[in-house]
């Protein structure tokens, strides 16, 4: 049975607290820990009874309890060891993942619930809301029991994979939904919601995809695959497994990621699109220290680089400067001998808005995943283009989500057709559509979400993005990435 933490309002009296506890017991609940610093208690409640508690007037909030009593850190993700994971380690990872996910989903649901009624009634937003509820209800039964054998683990991983799959197009659907609701919710509110939501989503997907990746590089899985291949009965061979990842990978983390290589592959991808849309292929140069490697999540960096290079290439071509290469400088941070004090220049952690004050230190449920240690060597990547820069009237909007620039007349406008870039509407659409089509995994391309989302990814592990425009000349983008840590 799920465990909850019930918090009462600050001005609740002792009798009111006692009354709430009694109510919980009446429902068949079991009171666990009673807090002294805050007015609240922990209770294990039977299914379906939670809403009764929520309706008590003095109750501030009822939240799923988190079993792990420490803020989530990346150390936890890699503590199960380097692949291939043994059966025990794999089970431990599964159990750990299970402990983290439901609470994160619960928070998303709560955030959605707090949006205006008319907004959540929108079919698109409602669909996403239902997705989250469905996912949570799929996971909750698992919470009661435990993953004790490999069959359980396989089943659990399948559930995870379905979860990841279901939520793949959350962003474009939400975007369309908010667009349709723009009369009922202000751009500032949407930006606030999306910022929080998308950042949380990064973490949730990370945890799930990480376990899935560990699963596919685990000993039990590999053994099964070998056995199935040896049996060579076409009927029993499962779907071809993904090729085992390189040795430097732990789950979704590549401990030896070389940004310069990723720049080149993303550059080629974006340059191909440019060639298709504009007939011109921009050039780029990588300088600084191209052979730098660090530990990071490749899919994140790939997304960021693709978006930033798209901006740079498009601007360069539209400014008629395609002969001038885009210069990308890779600058590794020098290793720090002693732990560095936190720098004021890095953006505040997005979780600082979340964590419920100082009530309970262990409540860092929605906190972004902390890097392994402060000494995690990072990298700064500067992308310098001759694309003519960003004009000062557009500049304040570059970090908001694209719906703000849609014209009010057309509800049929495809996301992406109004992106703030502004130049060459036709080519803009073509670029977005083509890139969306070819980049099958990520239909978020071309939404005008590129910059704010990239920043969310960069900031997730303590980095950030800064944009400096020289209007009339070009733009410099500074991508600071904190490594996810030194992993032995």
């Amino acid at each position: 049975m799920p465990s909850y933490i019930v918090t009462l309002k600050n001005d609740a009296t002792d009798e009111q607290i006692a009354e709430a506890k009694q109510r919980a017991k009446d429902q068949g609940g079991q009171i666990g820990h009673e807090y002294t610093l805050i007015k609240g208690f922990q209770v294990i409640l039977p299914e379906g009874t939670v809403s009764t508690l929520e309706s008590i007037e003095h109750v501030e909030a009822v939240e799923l309890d988190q079993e792990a009593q420490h803020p989530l850190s990346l150390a936890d993700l890699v503590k199960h060891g380097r692949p291939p994971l043994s059966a025990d380690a794999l089970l431990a990872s599964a159990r750990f993942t299970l402990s983290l996910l439901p609470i994160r989903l619960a928070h998303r649901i709560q955030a959605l619930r707090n949006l205006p009624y008319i907004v959540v009634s929108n079919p698109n937003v409602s669909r996403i809301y239902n997705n989250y509820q469905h996912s949570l209800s799929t996971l909750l039964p698992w919470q009661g029991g435990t993953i004790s054998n490999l069959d359980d683990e396989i089943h659990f991983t399948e559930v995870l994979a379905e979860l990841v799959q279901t939520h793949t197009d959350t962003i474009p659907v939400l975007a369309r939904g908010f667009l349709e609701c723009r009369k009922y919710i202000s751009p500032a509110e949407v930006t606030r919601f999306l910022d929080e939501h998308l950042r949380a989503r990064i973490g949730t997907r990370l945890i799930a995809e990480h376990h899935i990746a560990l699963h596919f590089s685990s000993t039990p899985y590999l053994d099964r695959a070998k056995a199935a291949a040896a049996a060579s009965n076409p009927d029993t061979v499962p779907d071809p497994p993904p090729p085992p990842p390189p040795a430097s990978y732990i789950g979704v983390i590549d401990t030896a990621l070389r940004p310069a290589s990723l720049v080149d592959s993303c550059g080629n991808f974006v340059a191909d699109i440019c060639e298709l849309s504009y007939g011109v292929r921009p050039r780029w140069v990588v300088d600084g220290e191209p052979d730098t490697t660090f530990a990071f999540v490749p899919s994140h960096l790939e997304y960021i680089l693709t978006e930033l290079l798209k901006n740079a290439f498009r601007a360069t071509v539209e400014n008629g400067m395609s002969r001038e290469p885009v210069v990308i400088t890779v600058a590794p941070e020098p290793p720090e001998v002693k732990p560095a004090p936190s720098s004021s220049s890095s953006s505040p952690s997005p979780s600082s808005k979340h964590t419920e004050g100082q009530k309970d230190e262990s409540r860092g449920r929605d906190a972004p995943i902390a890097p392994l240690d402060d000494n995690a060597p990072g990298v700064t990547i500067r992308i310098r283009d001759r694309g003519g820069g960003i004009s000062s009237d557009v500049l304040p909007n570059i970090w908001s989500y694209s719906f703000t620039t849609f014209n009010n007349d057309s509800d049929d406008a495809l996301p992406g057709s109004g992106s703030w870039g502004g130049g060459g509407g036709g080519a803009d659409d073509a670029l977005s559509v083509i890139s969306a089509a070819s980049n099958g995994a990520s239909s978020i391309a071309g939404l005008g979400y590129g910059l704010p989302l990239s920043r969310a990814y960069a900031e997730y592990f303590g980095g950030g993005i800064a944009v400096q425009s020289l209007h009339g000349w070009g733009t410099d983008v500074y991508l600071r990435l904190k490594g996810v840590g030194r992993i032995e």
Partner: protein
Amino acid sequence: MPRFSVHNVKTPARLMAGIAHRIRDMQRLPYVVVTNPHINEVYDLYYTAFDTFRKVKEIKTTEDNDRFCKTIRSMLKAHLPVIPKLAMGILECNGLMDASELDKFMNTILRSRISRRVIAEQHLALTDTFNASWFSPGAKLSESEFIGEVFLKCVAKDVVERVAHTVRDILQHAYGSDVMLPEVRIDGHLDANFPYILSHLEYIIGELLRNSVQAVAERYHHDRNKKIPPGTKPPPIQVTICESSQHVIIRISDQGGGIHREVLPYLWSFSKGPASQQILANLGKVPKMAATMQELQVADEQQHHNPITTASSSRHNPGKNPNPNPGTTSSGMPAVGSESIEFDGQPPSAQAPGGDPNSSLASLASRPPNLRLGMGLPLSRVYAEYWAGSLALHSLEGYGVDAFLQISKLGNKNEQLTTRASMDAV
């Protein structure tokens, strides 16, 4: 065009209002801060200034005005040390008051100081023009001549080149001939120009270039950094000038290794946290600081090579009365815009070595590289933002720094000055 009589008469009132407000600001600071000897000296200076100005009679005659001008000049001179004194005071008060409050105070007083000094200098310049032999009231003036104009047309490329030359001279002199200094290369819109107070612009660019050249030279010098083979040519500093309809942006890009993350939080603050003690020791060695290019002038012996004052004077009076005395106006008054105005009429560049006390500016100019004062950036930003511009820095730690100086082309600067003066009077 500014009208002579109106501007002249209002000057004492404007100056007094600004001073009064700053005195009030200081009176509100915590007792422990204002009793710091340095801050206290500044407080006394301001108090005296107010007292002096309030005794000035309404200006009705030329003699009245001459007396007033004399007062202004001596005031400008007496207040030269205000900046380093305030800076020292703030460093000593580390921990006694919230750093951001201190910064707010410092920014306010520095901004107010800029406006008062420029108003004062504008008044002096107006007087000069009025007194100039070629001027007659009511005469039509061509567009290129402005009465009491303190803003000069600055061609970005020229200013950068001149400043780069001076900075490299000073640093080469200080480091010795065996240290290789990086070149400064300029690209972009080379014709870009805009009206500005030349000494302010030169100060900002001077500080930025100085930071860059020093960082690169030290990073690529074999003695400091054993990984660099001896004789390696340091990578050049790239300056890009970008002009649009509303702004001119000057980007200075170096490969000096970036800013250390421990320094980063204090970069723009006058409070320096852990580094306070060392900086205090350095500041004590600098007698006065006027925050102009003249501080960056090469030491006395090399003054005859000084390209700066010659250039500014030729701009100040385009085509009219070729000026025999560099650094002065045609009537022998000192060049407008320089804070180190000599009231005895001697231009700074022509003085004998070790003569006038204001030549001590030269000692700041040739301050050795290890004399890190920590004020260049926050002070430059005050100047940049004063004229509706901005100064931003992006550091690639381990690689280098990009500095972006944005200058606004919009608006009539003279009008801005008057508006600012009335705003500062609040």
